[in-house]
């Protein structure tokens, strides 16, 4: 069997909600062994109880399932000294620890970077915060939508004539988690050379700001705020979303040949005079008007066909049904359907394609404490008796039957595979 890129890397994931769990899942999908820690019984309530309409099919939490694949789930009460001791023991045997508790919490509990790096100097300790572990705003709690708000990302999205719009997706969590995973791997690469671990301080607001392309230069150069440009890109011309007869399409034509092909396809050869890129930007309103006028009388299918025949880029504004049914995505394994031993057939998006490793989603989220025995026996070498005592003292635990999304569906209490 081919080795996975991060095989042999062990990650202790003591994170909550989306941002941290997603970062750790990326490492798990790349082949790392990831141990996700929650509170016994209720687990991570801030995500286990998140679902549209408050429905939880097969005891799954949509909020949790999208950012916790391929992990082992344990439940430790870290408020208890024996719980902290378990974290220390696990951290001693891990390459990476990720946490997103309020800055300073782990330090106060004696399981912060200072203490754990003494036990394990090779440990990479990743603290994932709204605003980071220090600086003017360090004490402020954060959520994705706050990060989208305070950075101005929401303010630059949408139409000037309406209101600022945030993405429905928790992009402040997901993008920041992706960058956190990248940063962790940079630290791991260096550790493999130098033998030294380190402390990483992430701020989700700072990640979003990093991704806001020309916003900050524009403001400082002009002294003006960045407006909302709706569905027309003012800097990349042509790049827009337009209304068709029966849906919406994205259209892009940037290289000269693409732009000329577009002018021809929409029957507006007089716009060819703007082929010079700067002229295109200058006259973008006229160009976008022409495209929108053309698109509104065509069906999405017609537009896609004409784009393909002429040589510019176009795509339907796809919804999850379109994506699910797309042959292109199925063929590329970007839409993966797999059989989860607890939750049965599931479907995940996927973007990590390597020629020398067969990466895939193997399983989804798991019930609270589902993998306690596996992890504590195999990694810490605890005996049956030691485990029994930890359960008895409620230092470790399992799910709460009264909260469905913490528990396995009926008959699946023992369906894990390792």
């Amino acid at each position, binding site marked *: 069997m081919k080795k996975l890129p991060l095989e042999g890397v062990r990650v202790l994931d003591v994170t909550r909600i989306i941002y941290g769990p997603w970062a750790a899942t990326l490492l798990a999908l790349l082949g790392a062994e990831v141990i996700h820690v929650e509170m016994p019984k209720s687990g991570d309530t801030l995500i286990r109880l998140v*679902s549209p309409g408050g429905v939880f099919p097969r005891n799954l939490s949509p909020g949790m399932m999208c950012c916790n694949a391929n992990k082992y789930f344990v439940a430790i009460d870290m408020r208890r000294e024996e719980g902290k001791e378990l974290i220390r023991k696990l951290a001693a045997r891990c390459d990476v620890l990720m946490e997103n508790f309020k800055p300073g919490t782990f330090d106060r509990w004696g399981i912060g970077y200072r203490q754990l790096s003494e036990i394990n100097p090779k440990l990479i300790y990743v603290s994932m915060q709204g605003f980071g572990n220090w600086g003017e705003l360090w004490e402020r709690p954060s959520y994705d939508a706050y990060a989208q708000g305070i950075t101005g990302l929401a303010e630059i999205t949408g139409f000037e004539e309406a*209101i600022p719009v945030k993405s429905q997706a928790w992009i402040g969590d997901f993008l920041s988690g992706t960058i956190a995973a*990248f940063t962790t791997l940079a630290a791991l690469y260096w550790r493999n050379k130098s033998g030294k671990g380190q402390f990483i301080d992430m701020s989700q607001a700072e*990640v979003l*700001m990093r991704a806001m392309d020309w916003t900050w230069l524009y403001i400082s150069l*002009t002294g003006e705020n960045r407006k909302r440009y709706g569905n027309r890109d003012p800097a990349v011309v042509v790049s827009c979303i337009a209304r068709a007869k029966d849906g919406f399409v994205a259209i892009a034509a940037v290289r000269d040949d693409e732009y000329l092909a577009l002018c021809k396809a929409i029957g507006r050869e007089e716009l060819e005079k703007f082929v010079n890129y700067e002229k295109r930007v200058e006259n973008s309103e006229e160009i976008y008007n022409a495209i929108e006028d053309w698109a509104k009388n065509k069906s999405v299918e017609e537009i896609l066909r004409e784009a393909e025949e002429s040589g510019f880029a176009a795509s339907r504004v796809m919804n999850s049904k379109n994506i699910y049914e797309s042959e292109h995505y199925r063929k590329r394994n970007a839409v993966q359907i797999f059989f989860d031993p607890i939750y049965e057939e599931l479907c995940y998006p996927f973007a990590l394609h390597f020629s*020398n490793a067969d990466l895939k989603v193997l399983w989804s989220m798991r019930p609270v404490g589902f993998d306690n025995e596996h992890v504590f026996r195999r990694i810490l070498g605890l005996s049956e008796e030691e485990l029994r005592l930890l359960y008895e003292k409620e230092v470790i635990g399992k799910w709460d039957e009264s909260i469905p999304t913490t528990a396995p569906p009926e008959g699946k209490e023992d369906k894990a595979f390792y």
Partner: protein
Amino acid sequence: MEWNEIAKRITDPKDSPQKPEALEGVRVIDVSYGSFAGLFASSLLAEMGAEVIRIEPPEGDIARKYSPENLKVFDQGLAYFVESRNKYHITLNLEKEKGVEIFEKIVEKSDVFIHTFPRDYAERIGIDYESLKKINPMLIYCSIHTHGYEKGFNFGDYDVIAQAMSGFAYTTGIPEDYEEFPEHTRVPTKMGNWMGWYAGGAFAALSILAALISRDRNGEGCMIDLSPAEALMCLNNYALHFYHLTGKVIERSGNFEPAAYAYNYFRAKDGMVFIAGYTDPNWKALCTIIGREDLVEKYPTIKDRTNPKNWIPMTREIEKFTMQHTRKELLEIWLSYKGEGVTVAGEVLKPIETVEFEHWYERGALIKIRGDGKELIVQGVCQKMSETPPRVKWLGRKVGEDNSLIYRKLLGLDDKEMERLKKEGVI
């Protein structure tokens, strides 16, 4: 010493220049064209200390021209200036045989190769994976394109296509039936920034590092086939998972969160605030703060609160309180709450207000530089590391600025040979 002081001491960007770099010794060739997915991927690697060599055609990458109002700093578009960081810039005409010959010699001496061309084009000029693998079997080859490394697509890699193909634009925007807003604004909406490109670049850089770590162990290069559309699709919450589970398509919901309430924006006296308090105890905390315990009784469960019919009525009730206060006052009210439950309030700002916090500058997330006779603000780095901090070393090199430096260093070309190549239109 308090933890936050210690954290500052060990990660203060002021000390970065004295510290080592994580990716020192890694050479990256980036020939991306017209795509900020490629440029962001190589920026992330360059910030970490990789030696990134940008290869542009002699007339420069069209991405240099992407700029609102055609604004320029140091003769380049604003966006390119940001992602030019720490990169060496050379020119090479890959459409000439001699150009590809030189290119192959550079590839032999490199660890990572990034491009954003359609596969057919890469094959036609001989820079496809099969060809380059023969020259350098240890090479990590990263192809970035919205449609992936697939035949039959001739166009470039564009952000808006990724935003559309990922399902992201579909779930963003104001719903059709919110008639208080003009009709043309109640549509699927692309993110204001190039989120498709930035997501694609982040995934590419992540994949490249995983491949580098793996290569150190097994001695083998590989090919990474990265689609920014698929990357952004992975960041679109549970939309696809949920469709498969229930057959229901998640629709756009403006600034409401379909899976939790309160978790949205509210009007204040002077703008908008974000407020979260969505599990039962946290909802109760929110209602306590605004003195409206009656709302706990009226909307007691998650089911009641995630019912779209209740979103606007609940919001109007909460706004009766928030509209009496400024954003600043609301923040203070929320921060001073010491009762049961966790609820968060935060301001929604215009970017021109965002830049006023000292926070970003002391942490190096934003940096100030001189240019155009002004103090300009540009992104620094968004991660702090205690031992190998990423950093910005330089910005804004011109097309071909590093030709003589790089060609001499890598290929031992002298001035005469360079002059000849220039005449032949190769560099």
